[in-house]
């Protein structure tokens, strides 16, 4: 992802790399630096979450990127260019900025709010009008219905969407988001998070997102920076790696209870080793299948149809009763049953665990594009966690 675009040109759509070098912010009259010598590289096109307790300097660090706060020392580069060599206002017009509740101006219509940055950049009126419509559609608000409303006439979630539309209006390569979803209810927040992820699939901006909610960080982040007092970077890694191998007790405390469960939630079935369960086509002979079953962990085989879709489960007992091809032979007394529950390889391990519990069986077939690829059992889940931990320890990126 990081090699797609690393130049800092503005308005070319996708993101630019951000680099912080020895960045320090010291306020007059304070002994301890608010931000103390931070070094951080944020790859182009990724969502990087700044997580930390309040007062740790995460917002200060973010606000130095668009110079709302001037660093005392150090360098900040966006797409290789030093932000301090640019006029601050001009710089900020090329960096999207989203704050809690959107920060919309209540005396301006939705359209006027979105048009602010393009206007400052001197776009023509017709281009601005077109862009406003495009942006509203992008964030899922019908332009005809919403363009001329005032922010007061919108719900919290809608205001937040307009805030994102305003930030994206001039197509900046970088987006700074300061706890944007902090003021909306949990259901709306989940929606907005999903929408941000699908927007990001389309736009590939470099997004710096400040939050104190670790779960939000896990859900949204390509990477997470965990910050302590003085904006000290405690751990900087992908969510799975942080969950599997927290750097220290501070990070462990931040992850909170249920770290393993959260890890299950960021791991996809396609990325783990599945159980070796015997599979059979209707044309296979019972003897062949029985041999396979005897070599596998579970005393069943999954029967697939001609396009390799799982159809039903067949037990070793039933297989022993059959002579020749298994065909559609089934004996419910032996525990044979239809494979009603299957799960997609794109699902998370947590979803698989839930399916296992719901299915009332200890094995669920996994499919990728509807084709059988393996099965998931409780053992599989446990092994996956252990492997993720080992991998994270061995990789040990910091």
């Amino acid at each position: 992802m990081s090699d797609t675009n690393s130049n800092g040109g503005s308005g070319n759509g996708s993101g630019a790399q951000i680099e912080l070098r020895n960045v320090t912010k010291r306020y007059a009259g304070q002994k301890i630096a608010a931000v103390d010598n931070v070094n951080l590289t944020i790859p182009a096109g990724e969502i990087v979450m700044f997580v930390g307790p309040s007062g740790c300097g995460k917002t200060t660090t973010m606000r130095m990127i668009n110079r709302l706060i001037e660093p005392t020392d150090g360098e900040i580069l966006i797409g290789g260019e030093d932000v301090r060599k640019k006029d601050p206002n001009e710089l900020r017009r090329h960096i999207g900025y989203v704050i809690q509740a959107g920060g919309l101006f209540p005396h301006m219509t939705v359209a006027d709010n979105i048009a602010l940055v393009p206007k400052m950049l001197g776009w023509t009126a017709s281009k601005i009008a077109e862009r406003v419509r495009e942006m509203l559609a992008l964030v899922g608000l019908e332009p005809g219905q919403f363009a001329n409303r005032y922010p007061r006439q919108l719900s919290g979630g809608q205001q937040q969407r307009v805030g994102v539309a305003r930030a994206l209006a001039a197509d900046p390569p970088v987006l700074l988001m300061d706890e944007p979803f902090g003021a909306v209810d949990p259901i709306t927040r989940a929606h907005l998070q999903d929408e941000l992820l699908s927007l990001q699939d389309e736009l590939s901006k470099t997004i710096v997102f400040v939050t104190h909610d670790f779960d939000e960080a896990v859900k949204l982040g390509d990477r997470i920076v965990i910050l302590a007092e003085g904006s000290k970077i405690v751990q900087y890694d992908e969510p799975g790696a942080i969950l599997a191998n927290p750097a220290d007790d501070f990070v462990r405390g931040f992850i909170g209870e249920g770290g393993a469960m959260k890890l299950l939630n960021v791991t996809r079935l396609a990325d783990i080793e599945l159980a070796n369960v015997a599979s059979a086509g209707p044309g296979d002979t019972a003897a062949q299948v029985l041999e396979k079953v005897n070599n596998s962990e579970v005393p069943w085989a999954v029967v697939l149809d001609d396009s390799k879709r799982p159809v039903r489960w067949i037990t070793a007992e039933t297989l022993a009763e059959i002579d020749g091809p298994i065909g559609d032979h089934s004996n419910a007394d032996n525990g044979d049953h239809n494979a009603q529950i299957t799960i997609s390889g794109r699902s998370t391990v947590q979803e698989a665990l839930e399916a296992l519990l719901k299915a009332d069986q200890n094995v669920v077939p996994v499919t990728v594009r509807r084709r059988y690829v393996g099965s998931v059992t409780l053992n599989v889940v446990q092994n996956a966690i252990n492997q993720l931990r080992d991998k994270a320890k061995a990789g040990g990126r910091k």
Partner: protein
Amino acid sequence: MSTLAEQELQATGAAPSEADRKVWALLSAPAVILVGALGLFVYLSNATIDDSMKATLNGQVIATQIREHLVLSAVSTVIVLCIAVPLGIALSRKGAKVATPIVLALANIGQGAPAIGIIALLAVWLGIGFWVAILAMSVYSILPALRNTLVGLEQVDPALVDAGRGIGMSAPAVLFKVELPLAVPVILAGIRTTLVLNVGMAALAAFIGAGGLGNMVVTGVKLFQIPVLVTGSILIAMLALAVDWVAAIAERFLHPKGV
């Protein structure tokens, strides 16, 4: 979405009734003025008015005095605006905030001192006449406009100023496009108070020869002409009400949309 739509329906449904209420409030002032005028007319029809009173109680003299009164009020209000609003803006900026309590204390003295005291002291010091009256009125009435400009700017959500700067608006752009428009309702309320104070204080301008409806009161008291005194007093009250009413209407139309 349905709940949202419902909320909006309720909101738009509530708006007209609120507006209606405001219309009634706006109509009450003219009603009181009308009643006052009728009362005055009935009183004057039944009062005994001699020739010396008729010299004061004639249309032309009254019209001149009303004009003088309005000019006094308008000029002093405009002067106050030219000082108070820029001063309020300056004091609301970062760095100038230390000066705020000092300036507000001075403005407080202006309003705290008795109006007649200010006007008399300034007359002793600077002599009598129109401009001395204007100066006294300005000193007396600057506080509401100044304080409301400050309060109006202070109550603008700092997050909006931050949002403005964050998307690349310059500091003056944020002031003129965000802060001032959002402070308008509070600033206008202050200006309205200043204006009404000035209309009341203009009645005292007659003591230092600056004209206005105060002349009738002064004459009435000096010559013990009760009908002249009553007419002057009621006209001053009615004028103050009328000016306040016009200001209320102006406030309504200048209120920023969407807020």
